């Protein structure tokens, strides 16, 4: 596949992520911040998001497994996850966190467990999609091309 085709494929793929609501405008903001002085900025920030999320998801799961569930602690973790997903533009993860926090407030363990599954699902989805996106970018660069900035109107 030649560079032009790869670039089209990347553009279509990226657009689909926005259309499906998996990413929002904040992700574009990250891309706009990336420049020659920091060409791996987006990958670095997203990696922090992955690290943060996996730790938080583990902490939440463990807290829900306790005899006496500490909803305040769980809410704090979910708040953090909501923050970092919002910062990278992982819209569906963020929205799942918002729903989760409502059940924490109600101290509803059963619904909280369901929410955790929902958040995990959305997280693994966006992780998968972003890893694919970065792979497509790497392929373009390896073939000598450059990664075009996506033009999207919101």
């Amino acid at each position, binding site marked *: 596949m030649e560079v032009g085709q790869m670039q089209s494929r990347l553009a279509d793929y990226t657009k689909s992520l926005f259309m499906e609501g998996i990413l929002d405008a*904040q992700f574009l*903001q*990250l891309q*706009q*911040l990336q*420049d020659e002085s*920091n060409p791996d*900025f987006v990958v*670095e*920030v997203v990696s*922090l*998001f992955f690290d*943060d999320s996996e730790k938080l998801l583990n902490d939440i799961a463990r807290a829900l497994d306790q005899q006496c569930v500490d909803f305040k602690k769980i809410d704090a973790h979910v*708040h*953090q996850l*909501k*923050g*970092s997903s*919002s*910062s*990278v533009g992982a819209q569906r993860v963020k929205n799942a966190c918002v729903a989760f926090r409502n059940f924490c407030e109600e101290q509803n363990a059963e619904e909280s467990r369901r929410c955790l599954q929902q958040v995990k699902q959305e997280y693994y989805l966006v992780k998968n999609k972003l890893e694919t996106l970065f792979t497509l970018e790497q392929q373009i660069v390896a073939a000598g091309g450059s990664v075009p900035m996506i033009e999207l109107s919101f």
Partner: protein
Amino acid sequence: MASPPSSSSSSASTGDEKPHVLAVDDSLLDRKLIEKLLTNSSCKVTTAENGQKALELLGLGDDGQRTFNGDASKVNLIITDYCMPGMTGYDLLKKIKESPTMKDIPVVVVSSENVPTRIKKCLDEGAQEFIMKPLQLSDVKKLRCQLTKFSNPHNGMLCMGR
């Protein structure tokens, strides 16, 4: 008539072209983000992961108000997250406004939650502004512009354009 090319990076007097911003946030991800937003807007940035460290950088650590000449060249703006464990952004704001040496530094509070009572509390305590997270490049550019106007009226030119 040769004249040196005008460059915004050369400065006749103090050499303090770039505003120095102290950014406080407990999230590493958000610190990284705000640092980039600020450096892309031609600001010098120092980050702190909590209020205590921020106060220390400002020379307002536990042992009173000693001047700290480390790398804390004059801070022109403080941006702090509201929700932080231990000392919140509001607590930090209060301490800064209580300090005779630091009270005139503008403090901007950022938060992911739109809570009107929270916003009012911060503004009443003297916060220059309360901005919703995630911070946008346009927010930072606006802040930078305001800084320039206050500190150097002759540099109004920097506020033109985007």
